[in-house]
């Protein structure tokens, strides 16, 4: 029994020492500064989702009147609530959490700490002191789909997908609509990995798709695993989150990317001025928060021109993704001719459009 106690004590000590806390706090003039804390679901060093948000944090940290801290790799669930509460009790003015699964913990703590501003990315709950914000990534997905549809030779495109939730399903659908807008013959094959960040699993999923015969790989995770698989097989790749061309210089066609700095810049300016209004924000490609990266060299000028024209139309509002007729996999019309899918439909999407091979279950 003595050993059991000893082992328990050792584990407790390890647990405390290994808590993934990184801080850039400057304690001496803390009183005057706006303290902002970030909570991430994955490591920031991954050039993925958390990395794109951490660029915003670094930008804020460079401001003389702001100090920031961040915790990375915080699992969704009870750990997240503890991490957020910990920041609440340490005098943070603003807490930013960037994964869907943090939503309920944030909403609960927002009630308990009315003086703190809570920013939650990718959820739907908001209140007087809690904002939910996200981007219409599906607009960029549509454009990258157009590139993929123009570049596939086998008319078979693979999509390595994370979890069957509306955000991901919406992305696959928008991508497929883009593919088929330029290439009505093409099909998009979907493989779910049920991971957000597992380079090995995501690479293996892409290899499975390539084995089955696709020649373009798109994805919805935080790792560039699928890109490296495409590069190794001489196929093309479509990136997500960041440019990702460094992982696959020969394969990279284009990527759907986030630029959160614009949001955090706007937020901190308004917060400082006292004009920030909490609410529900869903930014489009016109706000610059979602965009497409530079094209790979192999993408011909006429394809670029076509995609750029549609991008301009989306920005100006002349064109909307999910304009009918949109049919589902069974051929049933989900959005009638001339109609545009309402946001409610986009936010609860659980069906695939025509041209997708796979299941949303």
């Amino acid at each position, binding site marked *: 029994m003595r050993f059991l106690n000893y082992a328990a004590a050792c584990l407790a000590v390890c647990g405390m020492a*290994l808590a993934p806390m990184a801080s850039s706090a400057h304690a001496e003039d803390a009183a005057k500064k706006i303290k902002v804390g970030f909570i991430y679901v994955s490591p920031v060093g991954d050039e993925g989702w958390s990395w794109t948000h951490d660029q915003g944090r670094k930008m804020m940290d460079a401001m003389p009147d702001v100090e920031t801290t961040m915790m990375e790799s915080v699992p969704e669930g009870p750990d997240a609530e503890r991490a957020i509460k910990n920041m609440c009790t340490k005098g943070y003015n603003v807490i930013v959490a960037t994964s869907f699964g943090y939503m309920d913990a944030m909403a609960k703590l927002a009630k308990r700490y009315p003086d703190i501003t809570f920013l939650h990315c990718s959820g739907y709950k908001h209140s007087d002191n809690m904002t939910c914000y996200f981007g219409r990534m599906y607009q960029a997905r549509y454009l990258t789909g157009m590139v993929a549809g123009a570049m596939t030779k086998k008319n078979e495109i693979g999509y390595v997908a994370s979890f069957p939730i509306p955000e991901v399903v919406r992305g696959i659908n928008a991508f497929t609509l883009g593919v088929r807008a330029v290439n009505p013959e093409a099909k998009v094959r979907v493989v779910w990995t049920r991971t957000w960040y597992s*380079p090995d699993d995501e690479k293996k999923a892409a290899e499975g798709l390539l084995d089955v015969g696709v020649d373009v790989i798109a994805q919805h995770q935080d790792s560039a695993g699928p890109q490296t698989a495409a590069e190794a097989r001489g196929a093309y790749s479509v990136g997500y989150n960041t440019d990702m061309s460094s992982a696959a210089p020969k394969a990279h066609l284009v990527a759907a990317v986030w630029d959160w700095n614009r949001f955090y810049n706007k937020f901190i300016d308004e917060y400082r001025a006292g004009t920030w209004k909490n609410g529900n924000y869903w930014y489009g490609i016109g706000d610059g928060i979602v965009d497409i990266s530079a094209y790979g060299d192999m993408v011909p000028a006429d394809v670029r021109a076509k995609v750029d024209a549609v991008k301009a139309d989306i920005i100006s509002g002349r064109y909307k993704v999910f304009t009918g007729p949109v049919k589902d996999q069974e051929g049933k019309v989900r959005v009638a001719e001339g109609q545009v899918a309402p946001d409610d439909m986009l936010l609860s999407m659980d069906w695939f459009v025509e041209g997708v091979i796979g299941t949303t279950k």
Partner: protein
Amino acid sequence: MTWDIFVALLAATVLAGTPLLYATMGELVTERSGVLNLGVEGMMIMGAFFAFIVQFKTGNPWLAVLAAGLGAGGMGLLHGVVCLIFQGNQTVSGLALTIFGVGLSDYLGAPFIGEKTVGFQPFDIPLLSDVPFFGPVFFQHDPLVYLSYVLPWAVMWFFRRTSLGLALCASGESPEAVRAVGLDPVRMRWLGIFAGAFLVGVGGAYLSLCATHMWTHNLSAGKGWIAVALVIFAFWRPHRAMLGAYLFGGIMALQLRLQALGTTIPSSLMMMLPYLLTILALLFSSARGKGRSAPAALGENISPGA
């Protein structure tokens, strides 16, 4: 499913099975010496980390494999200190080793997340790689895969044909008998722990040097635990461990390709397959029979001077 997809599936099976093969073979050697080590997951991920960091600093993949083996071996020796010197509970010590290894690798590796390494690259074995079917399935991989083909047979030869191997296995069956012939069973168990942990570490090295070519957290992702189950599935016999590792690797590779081919089976069910197979394997193995049972003294400490 066409022939080409089938061949590609088998090639992917070998790749997915290789880290399991090393880890299973390592745990098998340790258990045959009479020590249960549930620290496989922790040793494997530390092996992956040691391999990554040495490859990253020196650029030499073979040195990296050696470092992975020695690093994981060192963790195994901690288990030895607890169980062989202080007579501690093997189950508890092994679990602690897993938690320790996963935590330590995350802590030490945090600055390197996302860093890429060269590691091993695949090379085709001349002539053999051109053989239809067998070439693409077995002989177009990287060196650690080729080494793993020999491993089960080498371990089997060691168990059956060398006096050291026989003494090691005897320490897992009846330490008193080993002592009676004038050998030291505790020393055999030290060997079993270290050699086993070394192999587990090489399995970890495969993950960072061959599978992902980068460092990230949770690289082992539960493979160490599958290895523990596979030892039981294999009835503690090396050649069956090879079969088990490929069976599991095959299930993982198959479910991805079934999805790609457009199956309507929900992905949540597909993901369960390897774990469902683990449970089935354990059920199947629990039907005891001749040559199926665990080493008789597995998990029992040897009291000093007894």
